[in-house]
């Protein structure tokens, strides 16, 4: 359905009723101008003129019944008027019913909402993201974007999910369209080529649709950041062919994390702490053990897990509904719920168990049975549906793998803090001891709850004051952004994790590092520290105080008196 075609649909559907209406009016008026009238004395008079006839038919047809009759009708006129009344009422009813039916017509409503959506997107005058797919994952991303004050445009194939979004209490209104995200016209209507479009997220649960999004972005808007959810490696390769390197595979992501937790527990904890929901207290769980692991369900997730676990040198037993040709490890046929199947897989001697089927209740029952057989098991549960979160948490497994959550976190991190994955990668290279020391230090400084992680870019938009002082030749150091604007001797509860300048990344930059325009800095700290830092970065006077310890005066004063002197001081 072409957006904006609502008007044409109305015109087209109204053809028949309108022609009928004109015809009935014409016959009625014509008759009235032909039938003779009668005067008070009963003598025949000339028929009505066209004006009078039109006037009479108009108030009769609309059932207004104005009743202003100059003189009584003749018998002939009365007969004709009776016919007019019935004919016109029927035709009007027909026309009105046609319009009403049109408004409840699905195709028409879609045309109407499509046109409205397109206009709203065109009118957006601030940066926004195009979000394709608003299910559990997309809904989380949308809510988080809204909390951060970023605008988004939503596209989903399911009307019900969009209706649910409307009920959510969002700060800004999100234009939403019900349509297939792999269709060119829908993506264009959603603002793919809009000048304020800052990125597109393909988070639908259909790999093919996400692939189509990658193709559209690459061909219609090259250079636009694209973040895609993908569950099959073959599709991921095809996405890469379109230049989309930002793909998120929830299964591979989690399998890598599990492997990380096995071989570098401190790095895993650092990762967990930095990417969690701010304010959450992470449960103190034990580290996943080395040894024998049982994997229930050998699907996409199972494959990714087995590959990573084998790389870690674990002994693996597989349980799957279908007989497996799996050389090198034990394979048992069954769902994993049956105690004898679990026993055959060696649950008594196992160290860890992963319930990785795509059915939540199966996973839960596997965990319950396995825990009874071996209370010391390290249990990892795959949770497919968000609505079962309480159920899964009540079982207290050591790790929960929720695809929606993993994708949402990864997508948001790539959008808002692209330096965080870079930092975590660098941390992996530095090893577990380094991560352990850093985590201990950060927790001491910032508290053990999950902190806020944010990225500041030194540009005229986000750091006006920094840019203007740099332009005047002052040395603005990183430490100015790490101290309290109300008392510069106090440190803010935040730390710089990484600094990117000209594509070169520095991990844990020194506080006396001098900033230059175009720098990207990754911070970790409290929400309050972030707000104070934003103030310093944007307000010239505050930044000046942080740098020199003296309050700077207003623009007028600065221009006429002290400007050169201050700049001179700062240069020294």
């Amino acid at each position, binding site marked *: 359905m072409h957006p904006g*075609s609502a008007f*044409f*649909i109305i*015109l*087209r*559907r*109204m*053809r028949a009723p*309108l*022609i009928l209406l*004109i*015809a009935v*009016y*014409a016959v009625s*008026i*014509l008759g009235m*101008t032909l039938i003779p009238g009668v005067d008070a004395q009963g003598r025949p008079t000339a028929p009505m*003129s*066209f*004006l009078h006839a039109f006037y009479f038919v108009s108030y009769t047809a609309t059932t207004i019944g104005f009743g202003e009759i100059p003189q009584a009708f003749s018998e002939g006129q009365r007969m004709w008027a009776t016919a007019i009344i019935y004919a016109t009422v029927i035709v009007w009813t027909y026309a009105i019913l046609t319009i009403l039916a049109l408004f409840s017509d699905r195709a028409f409503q879609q045309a109407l909402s499509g046109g409205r959506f397109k206009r709203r997107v065109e009118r957006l005058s601030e940066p926004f993201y195009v979000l394709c797919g608003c299910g559990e994952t997309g809904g989380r991303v949308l809510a988080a974007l809204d909390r951060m004050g970023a605008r988004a445009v939503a596209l989903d194939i399911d009307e019900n999910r969009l209706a649910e979004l409307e009920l959510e209490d969002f700060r800004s209104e999100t234009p939403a369209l019900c349509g297939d995200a792999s269709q060119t016209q829908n993506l264009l209507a959603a603002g793919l080529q809009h000048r304020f479009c800052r990125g597109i997220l393909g988070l639908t649960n259909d790999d093919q649709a996400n692939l189509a999004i990658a193709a559209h972005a690459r061909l219609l808007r090259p250079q636009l950041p694209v973040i895609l959810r993908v569950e099959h490696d073959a599709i991921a390769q095809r996405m890469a062919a379109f230049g989309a390197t930002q793909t998120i595979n929830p299964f591979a992501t989690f399998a890598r994390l599990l492997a990380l937790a096995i071989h570098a527990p401190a790095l895993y904890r650092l990762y967990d702490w930095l990417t969690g929901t701010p304010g959450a207290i992470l449960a103190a769980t034990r580290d996943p053990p080395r040894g024998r692991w049982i994997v229930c369900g050998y699907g996409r997730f199972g494959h990714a897990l087995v590959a990573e676990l084998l790389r870690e040198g674990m002994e693996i037993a597989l349980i799957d509904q279908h007989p497996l040709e799996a050389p090198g490890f034990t394979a048992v046929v069954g769902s994993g719920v049956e105690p004898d199947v679990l026993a055959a897989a060696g649950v008594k001697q196992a160290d860890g168990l992963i319930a990785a089927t795509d059915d939540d209740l199966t996973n839960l029952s596997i965990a319950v049975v396995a825990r009874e057989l071996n209370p010391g098991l390290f249990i990892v549960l795959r949770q497919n549906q968000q609505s079962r979160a309480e159920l899964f948490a009540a079982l207290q497994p050591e790790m929960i793998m929720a695809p929606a959550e993993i994708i949402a976190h990864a997508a948001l991190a790539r959008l808002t803090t692209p330096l965080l994955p870079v930092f975590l990668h660098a941390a992996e290279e530095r090893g577990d001891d380094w991560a352990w020391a850093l985590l201990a230090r950060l927790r001491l400084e910032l508290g053990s709850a999950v902190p806020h992680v944010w990225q500041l870019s030194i540009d005229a938009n986000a750091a006006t004051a920094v840019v203007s002082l740099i332009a005047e030749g002052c040395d603005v150091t990183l430490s100015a952004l790490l101290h309290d604007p109300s008392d510069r001797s106090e440190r803010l509860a935040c730390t710089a994790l990484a600094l990117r300048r000209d594509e070169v990344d520095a991990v844990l930059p020194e506080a006396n590092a001098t900033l230059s325009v175009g720098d990207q800095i990754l911070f970790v700290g409290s929400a309050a520290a972030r707000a104070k830092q934003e103030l310093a970065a944007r307000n010239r006077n505050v930044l000046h105080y942080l740098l020199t310890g003296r309050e700077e005066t207003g623009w007028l004063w600065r221009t006429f008196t002290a400007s050169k002197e201050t700049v001179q001081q700062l240069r020294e």
Partner: protein
Amino acid sequence: MNFEKVVFGFFIVFAATLNFGFFVGDIDRPELHHVYELFAAIIVNLIATVLKFGDRTQIGAIHLATSLVADLQLIAAASVWAFAVHVTGEGMTPAVTASVVSLSGGALLANIVSLAILIAETVMMRR
């Protein structure tokens, strides 16, 4: 043969011929321009207009535009007529007749344009 095309062509040609029938004759002689002819021209023009609704092509748009012009001019002619006869009471003097007929002449021009488009479209679509 497409019945829809027959109806469409019929009403466009009929609108033009009725319009012409009313217009033809000395411009200031009321006895040469009958009110029923004007009435028929208006009704057929309105129906032709509605038939042109909902076509999104360029030609469809021009078709609709010419029809709207013709409707406007014919309704203006009828209004002048009704005003002269019923409101001011001067009746169909040569001056009033001339203005009514010249308004319908404008509508005729619009109808001729409509006819020309119809013919051009038909020639282009010839298969």
